[in-house]
């Protein structure tokens, strides 16, 4: 089973390379280098902080776009091109097909994030060399702070979750609807704290109870965002990254199980 999933995954990765998805890495590098050159003139000494903010936000955004726009087409494209018939006639189960597709896109995202992170550290390393030790004293954290990798790890987890959502929707709906639903969940997932505190703004206990239920059920994307904390080198609660990663992993397992179940029942006639 793992071998089959691996084959499907490698094919998805190769297809994304053929589709020039990795070109976004060039855009990322050019944007970061251009910004590092220009920003010094505009920010009154906040260059390193801004490059960190920009780098982490860009990694998350580029990844999000890839996860959504490729994720929604993973299954739909095969159905639309009718290649699903020949694929499923081979010794590939529907479960392996879904999991392989997911693993392939996850691999694409991982390669993207690794290269973008390396590029960000390179730019920060260059900027670090431009400042004297005296100037660096006022920085909240060193330019090459390895603590930023915690934020990158949670960005990866968030992207894997978005991919799982996009894939889940793509097993039963059109690409447009899948994209809208995935983006919708991603946006709602940033307002989780409001759902938790809904009882403070409504009087109806039913509405408050429903909001509280949604708070627990919907994916909490805000929890994956620790960019500000790492940029300022603020301490995180012990085990925060591990608990959030575990939350993401379980949610992904839930969505993939759902995707497999839906896809298994789907009739392609």
């Amino acid at each position, binding site marked *: 089973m793992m071998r089959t999933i691996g084959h499907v995954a490698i094919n998805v990765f190769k297809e994304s390379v053929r589709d020039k998805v990795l070109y976004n890495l060039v855009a990322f590098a050019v944007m970061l280098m251009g910004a590092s050159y220009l920003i010094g003139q505009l*920010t009154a*000494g906040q260059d390193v902080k801004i490059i960190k903010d920009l780098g982490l936000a860009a990694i998350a955004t580029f990844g999000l776009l890839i996860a959504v726009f490729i994720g929604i087409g993973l299954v739909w494209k095969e159905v639309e091109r009718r290649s699903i018939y020949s694929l499923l006639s081979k010794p590939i189960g529907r479960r392996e097909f879904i999991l392989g597709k997911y693993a392939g896109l996850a691999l694409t995202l991982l390669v993207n994030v690794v290269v973008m992170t390396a590029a960000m550290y390179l730019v920060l390393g260059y900027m670090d060399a431009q400042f004297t030790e005296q100037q660096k004293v006022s920085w909240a954290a060193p330019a090459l702070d390895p603590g930023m990798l915690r934020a990158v790890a949670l960005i990866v987890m968030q992207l894997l979750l978005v991919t799982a959502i996009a894939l889940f929707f793509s097993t039963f709906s059109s690409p447009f609807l899948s994209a809208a639903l995935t983006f919708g969940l991603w946006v709602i997932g940033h307002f989780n704290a409001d759902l938790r505190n809904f009882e403070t703004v409504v009087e109806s206990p039913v509405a408050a109870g429903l909001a509280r239920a949604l708070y627990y059920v919907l994916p909490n994307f805000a929890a994956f965002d620790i960019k500000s904390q790492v940029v300022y080198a603020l301490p995180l609660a012990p085990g925060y990254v591990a608990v959030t990663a575990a939350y993401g992993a379980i949610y992904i397992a839930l969505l993939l199980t759902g995707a497999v179940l839906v896809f298994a029942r789907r009739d392609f006639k």
Partner: protein
Amino acid sequence: MKAVFLIALMAAVVGLQTMHERLEASTPAVIENLLYVRSPAAMTRMALSYDALLADLYWIRAVQHYGGTKLSTDPNKQYDLLYPLLDLTTSLDPRFNVAYYFGSTFLAEAPPGGPGRPDLAITLLEKGLRAQPDKWEFAQWIGFVHYWWRHDYAQAAAWFQSATEFPGAPFWLTQLAAVTLAEGGNRQSSRVLWQQVARTGVNEAFRSEAVRRLQQLDAMDQMDRLTEIVEAFRQRDGSVPGSWDDLGRAGYLRALPVDPSGVPYRLESGVVVLGRGSRMFPLPVEPQRLTP
């Protein structure tokens, strides 16, 4: 052939853009002083996970707005977007400390170098203090705004004193509070204040500004001494000197007097003033003593 066609098209685009630039130059400019979202609460919600990046953008806009307005030659120039931009910046990123320090300095600066709103500067710093209640620097800086721009030495001393009670506050704050209370408005106590900023300022730009402020105080001392010399000349000769040369020939001066930025002082009808283009301009309002 295709390459030539592409180059020709690109050249046409560049040419039209140049023409567009010329047409724009001959059209009366409309200054876009707009801020579509002024509510920090709304912007914080809309930011999703991009709050820090948006804070950076608003910070860059605040710096541009302040710098652009300061350099503008428009006699009716306004810094009306400065506080809303700083409010948005610090709401999106409550730990953006430079925005509090620089922002309060920008806001407090008297016209034409700034909007002359020390009240808003204090509001911004108090917001910083609410976001980071252990930051003694904000309390010190509030005292500083009271001292330097509002000339309210009692309030300044009270804030310096309150800053001493923060964890990790440096020992010199106690001395500063005492000096301010006893000698507020004295040029020497202003010097002590700026010397602390020059030593402990949050970054290079801040420390450089403190050095410039110290030079302004030196310039004020020099101008006082030159005024005494002019007065001595007037008492001896019965008329004010027409130029520095008159004072040189009378043996009062050995060289052309220059301010700390190297620009010669001017003598206008017996009054000593800064030379044109001096970095010392405008000199701060002479602090008033707390007690006569």
